[in-house]
């Protein structure tokens, strides 16, 4: 398994600003993912963030809006840029430490006014 922490746990932001979310894992992992969970909805994958390469974005998500950094095997950041109220969501990071099982962080609850 893996222990994952995220910062901040929640935030309230003004439209037009940007927020950077941090994800820290207690062990080195190759595969790391970022998901979005809009209010009352399921989870949607934003991007796959592997160390040493650029993130791979899913359809509907672009790097200019959601830039991702992955400087090492235990850490990643997701930035939500030029925010609008539609970006209000829970943002979760997850990792696959091995064996095919994906573990999730506690999430960052974002409200954009």
């Amino acid at each position: 398994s893996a222990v994952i922490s995220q910062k901040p746990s929640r935030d309230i932001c003004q439209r037009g600003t940007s927020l950077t979310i941090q994800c820290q894992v207690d062990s080195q992992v190759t595969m790391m993912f970022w998901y979005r969970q809009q209010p009352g909805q399921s989870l949607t994958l934003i991007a796959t963030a592997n160390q040493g390469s650029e993130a791979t974005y899913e359809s509907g998500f672009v790097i200019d809006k959601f830039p991702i950094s992955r400087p090492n095997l235990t850490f990643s950041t997701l930035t939500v840029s030029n925010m609008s109220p539609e970006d209000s969501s829970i943002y979760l990071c997850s990792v696959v430490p091995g064996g095919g099982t994906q573990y999730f962080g506690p999430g960052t609850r974002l409200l954009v006014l």
Partner: protein
Amino acid sequence: AQSVTQLDSQVPVFEEAPVELRCNYSSSVSVYLFWYVQYPNQGLQLLLKYLSGSTLVKGINGFEAEFNKSQTSFHLRKPSVHISDTAEYFCAVSEEGGKLIFGQGTELSVKP
């Protein structure tokens, strides 16, 4: 392309009754299957998983699920639910440990 369908958006049930949450998937290749639970205002917790082997898998909190390849289903069951089982349950599929595709979720509401 993979997809996951959770057939019930809400399941109300009385305490100590049995429950089944239904999940069907579509994929052209072998998959891994998961059930996650999300308690109010919390993150996702893994309930159980099917990677290979026995088609009946047991998870935490008394839950179990059965993988049925011919029916492409992975239904979640518990013989007797508790108030504390009230939560949102998500079925998910991945191809050999890659990205997860989630169903829309089933809200389980256990009433006294």
